[in-house]
């Protein structure tokens, strides 16, 4: 009964912190293959939306339907299991593990070796371990940081850390990749490389949900954009239309585009 082209539907999701309405009945629809932009001024509730979606926060009302099924609230590992992977605005890597180990952790979900496998190192476990390593290497290549594979995550440059986070997220084989300000703190060249990476990810069949303050990047990259302001969705459309919406211009874009 639900539209098979729709990957994610948010239904009137609300979340507040004390008196602060971080999200006020936000509904939106992300279709398969979208690069969906979520923009808005600081404190608009973008990250809170991610946190509710990925189960880190429990929304007070509303719910998400992902890939035709309702998402269980408050269970981050289940959100990952059904195919939602994310990165964090303030990068959260496993700093004292190497880049490749970080990505290998991302494979946890799609592999099954248990304690007995670990202790007895039977053939199945060894094969699986080799496959984990191979996949992690591929993903580091894919995001372009394979030469840093054996460096500790915390020693990578800022841009490389962002890429590593994306590689780790991709390791979970997501249907939806949610990126929280991936270009923050990047210079022009790095941002351009990121744009190409996100396009590549999209071409490879992963739907992307992107929070970003870099308006040029969002407008150039996204197929659809929603704008949040004080926890409310004030607009949702294709980038060209969003840029012209008077409420958006007032709340967020200001004089920069008008």
């Amino acid at each position, binding site marked *: 009964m639900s539209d098979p082209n729709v990957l994610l539907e948010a239904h009137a999701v609300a979340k507040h912190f004390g008196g602060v309405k971080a999200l006020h009945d936000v509904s939106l629809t992300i279709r398969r293959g979208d690069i969906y932009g979520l923009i808005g001024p600081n404190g608009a509730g973008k990250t809170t939306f991610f946190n509710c979606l990925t189960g880190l926060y429990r929304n007070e009302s509303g719910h998400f339907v992902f890939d035709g099924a309702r998402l269980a609230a408050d269970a981050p590992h289940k959100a990952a299991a059904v195919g939602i992977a994310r990165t*964090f605005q303030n990068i*959260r890597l496993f700093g004292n593990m190497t880049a490749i180990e970080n990505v290998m*952790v991302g494979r946890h979900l799609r592999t099954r070796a248990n304690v007995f496998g670990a*202790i007895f190192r039977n053939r199945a476990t060894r094969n699986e*371990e080799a496959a984990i390593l191979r996949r992690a290497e591929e993903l580091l290549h894919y995001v372009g940081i394979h030469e840093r594979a054996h460096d500790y995550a915390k020693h990578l440059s800022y841009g490389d850390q962002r890429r590593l986070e994306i590689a780790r997220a991709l390791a979970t084989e997501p249907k939806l990749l949610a990126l929280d300000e991936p270009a923050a703190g990047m210079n022009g060249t790095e941002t351009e490389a990121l744009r190409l990476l996100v396009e590549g990810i999209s071409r490879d069949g992963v739907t992307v949900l992107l929070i970003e303050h870099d308006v040029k990047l969002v407008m150039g990259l996204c197929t659809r954009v929603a704008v949040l302001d004080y926890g409310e969705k004030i607009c949702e459309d294709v980038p060209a239309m969003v840029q012209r919406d008077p409420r958006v211009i007032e709340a967020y874009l200001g004089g920069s585009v008008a």
Partner: protein
Amino acid sequence: MNLRFGKSMPWLGVVLVAVVLLAVPFVAALGGQAWVRIANFAILYIFLALGLNIVVGYAGLLDLGYVAFYAVGAYTYALLASPHFGIHLPFWMILPIGAALACFFGVILGAPTLKLRGDYLAIVTLGFGEIIRIFMNNLNAPINVTNGAQGITLIDPIRFGDFSFAQTGHLFGFTISGPQKYYFLLVALAIVVIVINIRLQDSRVGRAWQAIREDEVAAKACGINTRNVKLLAFAMGASFGGIAGGVFAAMQGFVSPESFSLMESITILAMVVLGGMGHIPGVILGAVLLTALPEALRYGIEPLQRMIFGRMFLDPESLRMLVFGLALVLVMRFRPAGLWPSSQRRRELAEPAD
């Protein structure tokens, strides 16, 4: 892992260690069987500390009640192999039962509490350790299960058919005493737990533990069911505690609640922390040092005091606490990652996480 003795001749290291391990009980016996027993306890503590290392070192869960699982294992053995109930099961049946029971208690304790973090978990586990001890102390009425504070005596030694670990025997022309036999059994067990520790470290589960220790939120976002994975660490640690308890009961022939005090939990934890959390050679070093320390005090300080002052000022027991505390403070001050930390732990403590 960092157990290499020269890269060019790895076998030399193995042979060397094997020779030393073989020689220890015979050299120690020159000073009397008491020394062999001390060596046995050192190895038993290595076993215990490496079990706790999975919980504290790998998964980063501060468990202050580890001795509870040791007690469960010891009492399981005592009740199933002594005249107390007149049950005399063979050890190969009881040790797995003890491990399973300890594991069960680990899950019972862990399931509701593993949401707690750091200090809170430490307090709950500490309480649990005390509860188990108090139970052992008072479970002699209305039905006499544990025989209260008197403990349980005449526990069967470990026995393979006619080969009893309690008696002196002869093997290849050597005379081998009971404690020496236990020594070899304990070394075998310790090797097993070392291998398990090593293998867990680079495995899917081991990486998940490390990820949780590094950043629990990110670990969850990667799809790790952190509650189950932590519970797994807890249950595994508990099982090792249970096995160690069983061997302890068999070796001593006697158990009482006194052996399972909070101090014991703290000692085992101190072995892990002092040696180098998460680093196997470090934990082994910690266990050996902290087993040897009180013995050195007992045999060293007492004669020393008599020699210098002509009488005893400080009894070794209170001196032990003093030295123990001082050692911990000094190590934490000057080597916060432990005496022999893994390179990773050194990194963690060297640079603040960003």
